[in-house]
Structures are given as structure tokens and as C-alpha cells.
């Protein structure tokens, strides 16, 4: 079961960025990335994509909602 090293690196991508790889897997990915522009570009792309998804998806609380939530204080458990 040798397989393509780039395929293997692709498999490790998400856990690499989540920092959930084992030490051995981490070294495996780092070693491959050090010599592979193709995978390095894709890893960098994935990292910036994640940041961009987060920035794009965050929407601030509408004005007025905080006051409505504040009014709920003191609600009775029996109410």
C-alpha cells in the first residue's frame, strides 16, 4: 500500500490545519510539504480559505436584540 505521496498529503490536510495529527503523521506531512510545491500551495490555499470563510460568515448581532435579551432577565421558571 504505497500510494501517491500527494494523495497521502491531501488526506492529512484537514487534521494538519486542525493540529490533530499524531507526531508521526505531522512529520510525514512536514517532510512531504518541504519538497512539494504542489501540496504546499494547496495547504496555504486551504488555510486562507478557512480564514476567509470565517470572516465572510460572521455577521454582527442586529441592533436592538441586546435590549430584547436584557428584558428577559429574571424570567420565572414557572412562567
Amino acid at each position, binding site marked *: 500500500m504505497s500510494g501517491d505521496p500527494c494523495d497521502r498529503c491531501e488526506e492529512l490536510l484537514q487534521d494538519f490545519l486542525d493540529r490533530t495529527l499524531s507526531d508521526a503523521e505531522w512529520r510525514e506531512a512536514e517532510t512531504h510539504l518541504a519538497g512539494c510545491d504542489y501540496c504546499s500551495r494547496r495547504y496555504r490555499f486551504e488555510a486562507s480559505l478557512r480564514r476567509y470563510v470565517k470572516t465572510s460568515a460572521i455577521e454582527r448581532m*442586529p441592533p436592538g436584540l441586546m435590549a430584547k435579551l436584557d428584558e428577559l432577565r429574571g424570567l420565572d421558571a414557572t412562567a
Partner: protein
Amino acid sequence: MSEPEPDTEARRIATEARDRARFEEEALSLADQVYRVARRLVGSREEAEDLVQETYARAFRSWRSYTAGTNMRAWLLRILTNLNVDRGRRIQRTPQTQPLEETDYYLANKLASAGGEQVLETDDVVERMSQDSVVNALSEIQPQFRDVVVLVDIGDFTYADAAQILDIPIGTVMSRLHRGRRALKQRLAEGAVT
């Protein structure tokens, strides 16, 4: 055992009022972060506002069931996701036919084959996708996968928190997260490269 002294009872009531006020303050300080997750779990701003209000109403009523010192943001989100599922308000924009899940390099490969391998070296390749397209792509992922992506990648919850919030095993969180992210990239590829 005699009846509690009047001043002991008064002290107990005062302590409880203080604990409750502290709980409410802490919960309210998290409202913006709770809304941020809610907004991406439902289809509209109005629904998100409703959901957050219902969540806080329930949280304030059942404040005694919160264990001080534990993760209150996760506790609030657990209430919120349960309410959301109960009300059946989760975004259901998924088409009937689910296309095959693509691999993790899929979007990068699509962009590279359309614009050349060097395009991935440019800093703005990601920003060329509009923020709306990202939000739409997120809303089109199947709810069970999207919930996990929203909690972890937008809400910054750990796998363990997400598992607790959704009441699913941590291994399920990880597999749904991976599939959800791949599905997101697939949707983005459809919009970015046409």
C-alpha cells in the same frame, strides 16, 4: 433541626439573587457570539433573532441547571441547537440529489486548472469569491454537516464542545466536519469556476 434563622434565610435569598444576576450577566456577554452561530444555522436574520431570544428565555428560566465554572457558551449553544431542531427551522436548501463528495484539493485544483497553477500563489485568489457566495455555499450543505462546520469553523468550538452541544460522539463530529468542509469547497468550486 430548627427552622432557619430569619437572617440565614435572607442571606440565602441574597446569595441566590447575586448568583442569578452573575449568570445573566455572563450569558448576555456571550450574546454576540451566540448570534453569530445562530445566524449561520438558520436561513434569515429574523429567524436567528427569534432563535436567540428563545434560547435566552429558556436559559434564564433554567439557570439553576447550569454548573458554574463550565463552558457557558457551549451550554447556551446546546439549548439553541436543540430548539432549532425542535422547531425544524434548519436551512433546508439542499437539492434532492446529493452530488458525490469531492476530495480536499478539489477547489484548489479547479482554480488551478482554470487560471494556472500560479494562481494559487496569489494572495487574492480566495477573496475573488464573494462573501455572499461563501454564505450561500455554507447554507447549501446538508444540515447535519453544516451544524458541525458552523460550530467548529465559525464558532471556534473544539471537537469535544461540538460533540457535547450536538449530543453526538466526537468521532462523528470529526467525520461530519471533514465531509462538511469538502462539501463547502465543492459548492464554492461550482460558483467560482463556471
